[in-house]
Protein backbone atom coordinates (compact mmCIF):
# COMPACT_ATOMS: atom_id res chain seq x y z
CA UNK A 1 0.00 0.00 0.00
CA UNK A 2 1.48 3.39 -0.92
CA UNK A 3 2.23 5.41 2.18
CA UNK A 4 2.29 2.35 4.44
CA UNK A 5 5.84 3.24 5.38
CA UNK A 6 4.45 6.18 7.39
CA UNK A 7 3.27 3.77 10.09
CA UNK A 8 6.34 1.55 10.10
CA UNK A 9 8.46 3.39 12.65
CA UNK A 10 6.09 3.62 15.57
CA UNK A 11 8.66 4.61 18.18
CA UNK A 12 10.26 7.37 16.11
CA UNK A 13 7.29 9.28 14.70
CA UNK A 14 9.41 10.56 11.79
CA UNK A 15 6.58 11.41 9.44
CA UNK A 16 4.07 12.71 12.00
CA UNK A 17 6.75 14.91 13.57
CA UNK A 18 7.83 16.15 10.18
CA UNK A 19 4.25 16.94 9.21
CA UNK A 20 3.73 18.77 12.50
CA UNK A 21 6.86 20.86 11.93
CA UNK A 22 5.70 21.66 8.40
CA UNK A 23 2.32 22.78 9.74
CA UNK A 24 3.98 24.92 12.41
CA UNK A 25 6.25 26.53 9.80
CA UNK A 26 3.27 27.19 7.52
CA UNK A 27 1.03 28.70 10.19
CA UNK A 28 3.70 30.87 11.81
CA UNK A 29 5.07 31.90 8.42
CA UNK A 30 1.60 32.80 7.16
CA UNK A 31 0.76 34.89 10.24
CA UNK A 32 4.10 36.68 9.98
CA UNK A 33 3.73 37.32 6.26
CA UNK A 34 0.19 38.69 6.63
CA UNK A 35 1.16 41.06 9.44
CA UNK A 36 4.24 42.25 7.58
CA UNK A 37 2.35 42.31 4.29
CA UNK A 38 -0.30 44.68 5.67
CA UNK A 39 2.41 47.04 6.89
CA UNK A 40 4.22 47.00 3.54
CA UNK A 41 0.95 47.48 1.66
CA UNK A 42 0.13 50.54 3.78
CA UNK A 43 3.66 51.82 3.03
CA UNK A 44 3.01 51.34 -0.66
CA UNK A 45 -0.19 53.39 -0.74
CA UNK A 46 1.05 55.95 1.76
CA UNK A 47 0.81 59.61 0.68
CA UNK A 48 4.39 60.04 2.01
CA UNK A 49 6.83 59.44 -0.87
CA UNK A 50 9.88 57.92 0.95
CA UNK A 51 7.61 55.34 2.63
CA UNK A 52 6.22 54.44 -0.77
CA UNK A 53 9.74 53.98 -2.14
CA UNK A 54 10.65 51.82 0.82
CA UNK A 55 7.60 49.61 0.26
CA UNK A 56 8.30 49.26 -3.46
CA UNK A 57 11.96 48.44 -2.83
CA UNK A 58 10.97 45.76 -0.32
CA UNK A 59 8.44 44.13 -2.62
CA UNK A 60 10.67 44.14 -5.69
CA UNK A 61 13.73 42.87 -3.85
CA UNK A 62 12.03 40.01 -2.04
CA UNK A 63 9.97 38.95 -5.06
CA UNK A 64 12.91 38.85 -7.44
CA UNK A 65 15.43 36.92 -5.38
CA UNK A 66 15.13 33.20 -4.63
CA UNK A 67 13.77 32.17 -1.24
CA UNK A 68 16.68 29.78 -0.87
CA UNK A 69 19.21 32.63 -1.12
CA UNK A 70 17.25 34.56 1.51
CA UNK A 71 17.17 31.55 3.82
CA UNK A 72 20.90 30.98 3.38
CA UNK A 73 21.52 34.64 4.13
CA UNK A 74 19.53 34.44 7.36
CA UNK A 75 21.07 31.11 8.30
CA UNK A 76 24.73 31.89 7.56
CA UNK A 77 25.03 35.65 7.60
CA UNK A 78 23.01 36.65 10.66
CA UNK A 79 25.25 34.72 13.09
CA UNK A 80 28.24 36.30 11.34
CA UNK A 81 26.67 39.70 12.03
CA UNK A 82 26.29 38.71 15.67
CA UNK A 83 22.50 38.21 15.52
CA UNK A 84 21.32 34.95 17.05
CA UNK A 85 17.66 34.14 17.64
CA UNK A 86 18.52 31.38 20.07
CA UNK A 87 21.54 29.57 21.51
CA UNK A 88 19.94 26.26 20.69
CA UNK A 89 20.89 25.28 17.14
CA UNK A 90 17.56 23.58 16.34
CA UNK A 91 15.52 26.48 17.66
CA UNK A 92 17.72 28.89 15.73
CA UNK A 93 17.20 26.95 12.47
CA UNK A 94 13.45 26.88 12.99
CA UNK A 95 13.21 30.58 13.77
CA UNK A 96 15.44 31.51 10.83
CA UNK A 97 13.19 29.43 8.54
CA UNK A 98 9.99 31.06 9.85
CA UNK A 99 11.50 34.50 9.46
CA UNK A 100 12.75 33.79 5.93
CA UNK A 101 9.42 32.34 4.81
CA UNK A 102 7.50 35.25 6.34
CA UNK A 103 9.76 37.88 4.76
CA UNK A 104 9.55 36.29 1.31
CA UNK A 105 5.80 35.78 1.19
CA UNK A 106 5.09 39.15 2.80
CA UNK A 107 6.10 40.73 -0.51
CA UNK A 108 3.38 38.78 -2.34
CA UNK A 109 0.83 39.42 0.39
CA UNK A 110 1.63 43.13 0.26
CA UNK A 111 0.95 43.25 -3.48
CA UNK A 112 -2.39 41.48 -3.05
CA UNK A 113 -3.47 43.74 -0.19
CA UNK A 114 -2.38 46.82 -2.10
CA UNK A 115 -4.51 45.68 -5.02
CA UNK A 116 -7.45 45.17 -2.66
CA UNK A 117 -7.01 48.60 -1.08
CA UNK A 118 -6.76 50.32 -4.44
CA UNK A 119 -9.83 48.39 -5.58
CA UNK A 120 -11.97 50.19 -3.02
CA UNK A 121 -14.09 52.82 -4.73
CA UNK A 122 -12.41 56.22 -4.57
CA UNK A 123 -15.73 57.85 -3.74
CA UNK A 124 -15.79 55.93 -0.46
CA UNK A 125 -12.41 57.30 0.54
CA UNK A 126 -13.29 60.85 -0.46
CA UNK A 127 -16.62 60.64 1.36
CA UNK A 128 -14.89 59.38 4.52
CA UNK A 129 -12.31 62.15 4.37
CA UNK A 130 -14.91 64.84 3.75
CA UNK A 131 -16.92 63.54 6.71
CA UNK A 132 -13.93 64.61 8.78
CA UNK A 133 -12.22 61.24 9.38
CA UNK A 134 -8.45 61.45 9.60
CA UNK A 135 -6.37 59.39 7.14
CA UNK A 136 -5.74 56.75 9.79
CA UNK A 137 -9.42 56.57 10.80
CA UNK A 138 -10.44 56.33 7.16
CA UNK A 139 -7.98 53.43 6.64
CA UNK A 140 -9.21 51.55 9.67
CA UNK A 141 -12.94 52.17 9.37
CA UNK A 142 -13.51 52.34 5.61
CA UNK A 143 -10.72 51.19 3.33
CA UNK A 144 -9.29 48.12 5.13
CA UNK A 145 -12.64 46.43 5.95
CA UNK A 146 -13.79 46.75 2.35
CA UNK A 147 -10.53 45.38 1.01
CA UNK A 148 -10.71 42.22 3.16
CA UNK A 149 -13.31 40.49 1.03
CA UNK A 150 -11.44 40.72 -2.26
CA UNK A 151 -8.14 39.86 -0.60
CA UNK A 152 -9.02 36.57 1.09
CA UNK A 153 -8.97 34.16 -1.91
CA UNK A 154 -5.60 35.39 -3.25
CA UNK A 155 -4.10 35.14 0.23
CA UNK A 156 -5.40 31.57 0.32
CA UNK A 157 -3.44 30.91 -2.87
CA UNK A 158 -0.33 32.39 -1.29
CA UNK A 159 -0.90 30.16 1.74
CA UNK A 160 -0.81 27.11 -0.55
CA UNK A 161 2.44 28.26 -2.13
CA UNK A 162 3.80 28.96 1.34
CA UNK A 163 2.93 25.48 2.61
CA UNK A 164 4.82 23.98 -0.34
CA UNK A 165 7.76 26.33 0.09
CA UNK A 166 8.31 25.26 3.70
CA UNK A 167 10.10 22.28 2.13
CA UNK A 168 13.05 24.61 1.63
CA UNK A 169 13.53 24.80 5.39
CA UNK A 170 15.09 21.35 5.03
CA UNK A 171 18.19 22.93 3.51
CA UNK A 172 18.89 24.93 6.66
CA UNK A 173 18.47 21.96 8.94
CA UNK A 174 14.82 22.04 10.02
CA UNK A 175 13.41 18.53 10.44
CA UNK A 176 10.22 19.06 8.46
CA UNK A 177 8.32 16.67 6.24
CA UNK A 178 10.76 16.39 3.35
CA UNK A 179 13.66 15.96 5.79
CA UNK A 180 11.74 13.12 7.45
CA UNK A 181 11.50 11.50 4.03
CA UNK A 182 15.27 11.89 3.65
CA UNK A 183 15.92 10.17 6.98
CA UNK A 184 13.67 7.25 6.15
CA UNK A 185 15.19 6.94 2.68
CA UNK A 186 18.71 6.95 4.09
CA UNK A 187 17.80 4.36 6.73
CA UNK A 188 15.84 1.95 4.55
CA UNK A 189 16.93 2.64 0.94
CA UNK A 190 13.27 2.30 -0.03
CA UNK A 191 13.42 5.52 -2.04
CA UNK A 192 10.14 5.38 -3.89
CA UNK A 193 8.11 4.42 -0.85
CA UNK A 194 9.77 7.04 1.36
CA UNK A 195 9.14 9.91 -1.05
CA UNK A 196 5.70 8.76 -2.15
CA UNK A 197 4.74 8.91 1.52
CA UNK A 198 6.08 12.47 1.71
CA UNK A 199 4.16 13.38 -1.43
CA UNK A 200 0.95 11.91 -0.02
CA UNK A 201 1.32 13.91 3.18
CA UNK A 202 1.91 17.11 1.20
CA UNK A 203 -1.20 16.32 -0.83
CA UNK A 204 -3.15 15.84 2.40
CA UNK A 205 -1.97 19.29 3.40
CA UNK A 206 -2.38 21.26 0.16
CA UNK A 207 -5.31 19.68 -1.69
CA UNK A 208 -7.89 20.59 1.01
CA UNK A 209 -6.42 24.09 1.04
CA UNK A 210 -6.86 24.32 -2.73
CA UNK A 211 -10.45 23.08 -2.47
CA UNK A 212 -11.11 25.61 0.31
CA UNK A 213 -9.72 28.46 -1.77
CA UNK A 214 -11.86 27.48 -4.75
CA UNK A 215 -14.94 27.37 -2.54
CA UNK A 216 -14.14 30.77 -1.02
CA UNK A 217 -13.56 32.23 -4.46
CA UNK A 218 -16.99 31.15 -5.67
CA UNK A 219 -18.72 32.34 -2.48
CA UNK A 220 -17.08 35.74 -2.40
CA UNK A 221 -17.49 36.20 -6.14
CA UNK A 222 -21.27 35.78 -6.00
CA UNK A 223 -21.60 38.37 -3.25
CA UNK A 224 -19.48 40.97 -5.05
Amino acid at each position, binding site marked *: MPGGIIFEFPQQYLYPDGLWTTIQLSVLGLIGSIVLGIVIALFRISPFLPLRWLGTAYV*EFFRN*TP*LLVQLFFLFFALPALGIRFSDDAFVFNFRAAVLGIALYHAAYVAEVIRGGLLGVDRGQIEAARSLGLSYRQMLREVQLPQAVRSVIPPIG*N*IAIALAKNTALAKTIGVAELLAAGDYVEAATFRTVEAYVAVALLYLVL*TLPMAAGVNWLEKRLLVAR
Partner: protein
Amino acid sequence: MRPDTWWIFTDVNFLRFFGAGLIQTMLLSVAAIALAFVVALVFALGRMSHRRWLRWPSIAYIETIRALPVLLLIVFFYIKGSSLLQPIFGPEFNLQPFWAGVLGLGLYTSAVLAEIIRAGILSLPRGQTEAARALGLSHVRAMRYVILPQGLRLMVPAMMSQLTTIIKDTSLVATIGVSDLLGQGRIIYNRYFNPIEVFLFVAVIYFVICFALSQASRRLELGNAPKAARAKIREIQLRDQAA
Protein backbone atom coordinates in the same frame (compact mmCIF):
# COMPACT_ATOMS: atom_id res chain seq x y z
CA MET B 1 36.61 41.77 13.66
CA ARG B 2 36.43 39.49 10.67
CA PRO B 3 38.65 40.49 7.76
CA ASP B 4 36.35 41.69 5.03
CA THR B 5 36.50 40.01 1.67
CA TRP B 6 34.75 42.41 -0.64
CA TRP B 7 37.93 42.42 -2.73
CA ILE B 8 37.02 39.05 -4.23
CA PHE B 9 34.33 40.71 -6.30
CA THR B 10 36.92 42.83 -8.12
CA ASP B 11 39.07 39.81 -8.91
CA VAL B 12 38.55 38.54 -12.46
CA ASN B 13 39.05 34.90 -11.50
CA PHE B 14 36.32 35.04 -8.88
CA LEU B 15 33.97 36.77 -11.28
CA ARG B 16 34.69 34.10 -13.85
CA PHE B 17 33.88 31.46 -11.22
CA PHE B 18 30.52 33.10 -10.55
CA GLY B 19 30.02 33.49 -14.30
CA ALA B 20 30.38 29.74 -14.77
CA GLY B 21 27.65 29.28 -12.18
CA LEU B 22 25.45 31.82 -13.90
CA ILE B 23 25.83 29.93 -17.18
CA GLN B 24 24.71 26.72 -15.46
CA THR B 25 21.70 28.56 -14.01
CA MET B 26 20.73 29.88 -17.43
CA LEU B 27 21.21 26.54 -19.22
CA LEU B 28 19.14 24.85 -16.55
CA SER B 29 16.30 27.38 -16.87
CA VAL B 30 16.23 27.07 -20.65
CA ALA B 31 16.31 23.27 -20.60
CA ALA B 32 13.63 23.15 -17.91
CA ILE B 33 11.28 25.51 -19.71
CA ALA B 34 11.75 23.68 -23.02
CA LEU B 35 10.86 20.37 -21.37
CA ALA B 36 8.02 22.02 -19.47
CA PHE B 37 6.49 23.55 -22.58
CA VAL B 38 6.32 20.27 -24.49
CA VAL B 39 4.87 18.31 -21.57
CA ALA B 40 2.51 21.16 -20.71
CA LEU B 41 1.07 21.27 -24.22
CA VAL B 42 0.30 17.55 -24.08
CA PHE B 43 -1.44 17.74 -20.71
CA ALA B 44 -3.28 20.98 -21.46
CA LEU B 45 -4.78 19.39 -24.59
CA GLY B 46 -5.40 16.17 -22.65
CA ARG B 47 -7.29 18.06 -19.97
CA MET B 48 -9.53 19.70 -22.55
CA SER B 49 -10.15 16.48 -24.48
CA HIS B 50 -13.63 15.00 -24.67
CA ARG B 51 -12.29 11.52 -24.08
CA ARG B 52 -12.45 10.58 -20.43
CA TRP B 53 -9.43 8.26 -20.53
CA LEU B 54 -7.35 11.25 -21.66
CA ARG B 55 -8.97 13.89 -19.49
CA TRP B 56 -8.87 12.21 -16.09
CA PRO B 57 -5.19 11.21 -16.07
CA SER B 58 -4.32 14.72 -17.27
CA ILE B 59 -6.30 16.32 -14.45
CA ALA B 60 -4.71 13.95 -11.93
CA TYR B 61 -1.20 14.74 -13.22
CA ILE B 62 -1.68 18.51 -13.22
CA GLU B 63 -3.38 18.75 -9.84
CA THR B 64 -0.97 16.36 -8.12
CA ILE B 65 2.21 17.95 -9.40
CA ARG B 66 0.91 21.43 -8.63
CA ALA B 67 0.27 20.40 -5.04
CA LEU B 68 3.83 19.18 -4.39
CA PRO B 69 6.95 21.18 -3.51
CA VAL B 70 9.49 21.49 -6.34
CA LEU B 71 12.27 20.49 -3.99
CA LEU B 72 10.58 17.12 -3.43
CA LEU B 73 10.59 16.41 -7.18
CA ILE B 74 14.20 17.52 -7.57
CA VAL B 75 15.43 15.42 -4.64
CA PHE B 76 13.44 12.43 -5.87
CA PHE B 77 14.95 12.55 -9.36
CA TYR B 78 18.40 13.16 -7.89
CA ILE B 79 18.22 9.95 -5.87
CA LYS B 80 16.00 7.76 -8.02
CA GLY B 81 16.34 9.24 -11.52
CA SER B 82 19.21 6.99 -12.59
CA SER B 83 17.46 3.72 -11.81
CA LEU B 84 14.16 5.00 -13.23
CA LEU B 85 15.79 5.76 -16.58
CA GLN B 86 18.06 2.71 -16.74
CA PRO B 87 15.48 0.59 -18.59
CA ILE B 88 15.58 3.22 -21.35
CA PHE B 89 19.25 4.19 -21.51
CA GLY B 90 20.88 0.94 -20.45
CA PRO B 91 22.21 -0.36 -17.12
CA GLU B 92 25.28 1.91 -17.11
CA PHE B 93 23.19 5.07 -17.23
CA ASN B 94 23.86 7.63 -14.52
CA LEU B 95 21.62 10.70 -14.32
CA GLN B 96 23.72 13.82 -13.71
CA PRO B 97 22.46 16.16 -10.96
CA PHE B 98 22.03 18.84 -13.63
CA TRP B 99 19.53 16.71 -15.54
CA ALA B 100 17.83 15.62 -12.32
CA GLY B 101 17.27 19.33 -11.71
CA VAL B 102 15.95 19.79 -15.25
CA LEU B 103 13.52 16.89 -14.81
CA GLY B 104 12.24 18.05 -11.42
CA LEU B 105 11.89 21.71 -12.36
CA GLY B 106 10.62 20.95 -15.85
CA LEU B 107 7.89 18.57 -14.71
CA TYR B 108 6.73 20.93 -11.97
CA THR B 109 6.63 23.86 -14.38
CA SER B 110 4.84 21.72 -16.97
CA ALA B 111 1.83 21.40 -14.66
CA VAL B 112 1.78 25.17 -14.11
CA LEU B 113 2.24 25.96 -17.81
CA ALA B 114 -0.51 23.48 -18.71
CA GLU B 115 -2.90 25.50 -16.55
CA ILE B 116 -1.71 28.75 -18.13
CA ILE B 117 -2.13 27.38 -21.66
CA ARG B 118 -5.57 26.05 -20.79
CA ALA B 119 -6.60 29.45 -19.41
CA GLY B 120 -5.45 31.02 -22.68
CA ILE B 121 -7.36 28.59 -24.85
CA LEU B 122 -10.53 28.76 -22.74
CA SER B 123 -10.49 32.55 -22.96
CA LEU B 124 -10.93 32.47 -26.75
CA PRO B 125 -14.49 33.06 -27.92
CA ARG B 126 -16.39 29.86 -28.71
CA GLY B 127 -17.11 31.24 -32.17
CA GLN B 128 -13.50 30.55 -33.15
CA THR B 129 -13.88 26.80 -32.65
CA GLU B 130 -17.34 26.72 -34.14
CA ALA B 131 -16.30 28.68 -37.24
CA ALA B 132 -13.28 26.43 -37.76
CA ARG B 133 -15.41 23.30 -37.44
CA ALA B 134 -18.10 24.79 -39.71
CA LEU B 135 -15.44 25.40 -42.37
CA GLY B 136 -14.84 21.67 -42.34
CA LEU B 137 -11.64 21.46 -40.31
CA SER B 138 -11.31 18.39 -38.13
CA HIS B 139 -10.99 18.85 -34.35
CA VAL B 140 -7.23 18.32 -34.53
CA ARG B 141 -6.78 20.75 -37.42
CA ALA B 142 -8.99 23.37 -35.79
CA MET B 143 -6.75 23.15 -32.72
CA ARG B 144 -3.55 23.17 -34.76
CA TYR B 145 -4.33 26.07 -37.12
CA VAL B 146 -6.92 28.20 -35.30
CA ILE B 147 -7.08 27.75 -31.54
CA LEU B 148 -3.51 27.02 -30.42
CA PRO B 149 -1.80 29.88 -32.31
CA GLN B 150 -4.20 32.38 -30.75
CA GLY B 151 -4.25 30.88 -27.28
CA LEU B 152 -0.48 30.54 -27.02
CA ARG B 153 0.12 34.08 -28.28
CA LEU B 154 -2.23 35.44 -25.62
CA MET B 155 -0.26 33.68 -22.94
CA VAL B 156 3.25 34.82 -23.90
CA PRO B 157 3.51 37.42 -21.08
CA ALA B 158 2.32 34.87 -18.51
CA MET B 159 4.93 32.40 -19.73
CA MET B 160 7.63 35.05 -19.52
CA SER B 161 6.83 35.76 -15.91
CA GLN B 162 6.88 32.00 -15.32
CA LEU B 163 10.45 32.15 -16.64
CA THR B 164 11.45 34.46 -13.77
CA THR B 165 9.96 31.94 -11.37
CA ILE B 166 12.00 29.17 -13.00
CA ILE B 167 15.20 31.19 -12.74
CA LYS B 168 14.55 31.70 -9.04
CA ASP B 169 13.73 28.01 -8.64
CA THR B 170 16.97 26.88 -10.28
CA SER B 171 18.68 27.94 -7.05
CA LEU B 172 17.19 24.78 -5.51
CA VAL B 173 19.55 22.57 -7.50
CA ALA B 174 22.41 23.94 -5.41
CA THR B 175 21.13 21.55 -2.72
CA ILE B 176 21.77 18.50 -4.92
CA GLY B 177 25.28 19.59 -5.81
CA VAL B 178 24.91 21.35 -9.14
CA SER B 179 27.37 24.24 -9.47
CA ASP B 180 24.84 26.88 -10.37
CA LEU B 181 25.10 30.48 -9.23
CA LEU B 182 24.13 29.70 -5.65
CA GLY B 183 26.21 26.51 -5.67
CA GLN B 184 29.32 28.45 -6.68
CA GLY B 185 28.50 30.97 -3.96
CA ARG B 186 28.45 28.19 -1.39
CA ILE B 187 31.85 26.93 -2.54
CA ILE B 188 33.32 30.41 -2.06
CA TYR B 189 31.59 30.74 1.28
CA ASN B 190 33.00 27.44 2.50
CA ARG B 191 36.49 28.58 1.55
CA TYR B 192 36.43 32.16 2.89
CA PHE B 193 33.63 32.15 5.50
CA ASN B 194 32.17 35.38 4.14
CA PRO B 195 28.43 34.64 4.01
CA ILE B 196 27.33 38.29 4.05
CA GLU B 197 29.33 39.28 1.00
CA VAL B 198 28.69 36.11 -0.99
CA PHE B 199 24.95 35.79 -0.46
CA LEU B 200 24.35 39.49 -0.99
CA PHE B 201 26.30 39.33 -4.24
CA VAL B 202 24.39 36.25 -5.41
CA ALA B 203 21.07 37.82 -4.42
CA VAL B 204 21.89 40.98 -6.38
CA ILE B 205 22.68 38.97 -9.53
CA TYR B 206 19.42 37.03 -9.27
CA PHE B 207 17.62 40.29 -8.61
CA VAL B 208 19.00 42.03 -11.69
CA ILE B 209 18.02 39.17 -13.99
CA CYS B 210 14.58 38.51 -12.54
CA PHE B 211 13.73 42.19 -12.16
CA ALA B 212 14.62 42.90 -15.79
CA LEU B 213 12.55 39.92 -16.96
CA SER B 214 9.53 40.77 -14.84
CA GLN B 215 9.61 44.39 -16.00
CA ALA B 216 9.75 43.16 -19.60
CA SER B 217 6.78 40.85 -19.11
CA ARG B 218 4.88 43.68 -17.41
CA ARG B 219 5.62 45.84 -20.46
CA LEU B 220 4.06 43.19 -22.70
CA GLU B 221 1.15 43.11 -20.26
CA LEU B 222 -1.81 40.79 -20.35
CA GLY B 223 -3.72 43.63 -21.97
CA ASN B 224 -4.98 41.50 -24.84
CA ALA B 225 -6.31 38.71 -22.67
CA PRO B 226 -9.93 38.82 -21.49
CA LYS B 227 -10.61 39.67 -17.87
CA ALA B 228 -11.50 36.13 -16.76
CA ALA B 229 -8.24 34.77 -18.21
CA ARG B 230 -6.25 37.48 -16.44
CA ALA B 231 -7.85 36.62 -13.10
CA LYS B 232 -7.10 32.93 -13.68
CA ILE B 233 -3.46 33.66 -14.53
CA ARG B 234 -3.03 35.78 -11.40
CA GLU B 235 -4.42 32.95 -9.33
CA ILE B 236 -2.11 30.39 -10.92
CA GLN B 237 0.88 32.61 -10.42
CA LEU B 238 0.11 33.22 -6.77
CA ARG B 239 -0.46 29.55 -6.01
CA ASP B 240 2.38 28.14 -8.04
CA GLN B 241 5.10 30.69 -7.66
CA ALA B 242 7.47 28.37 -5.91
CA ALA B 243 10.63 29.54 -4.26
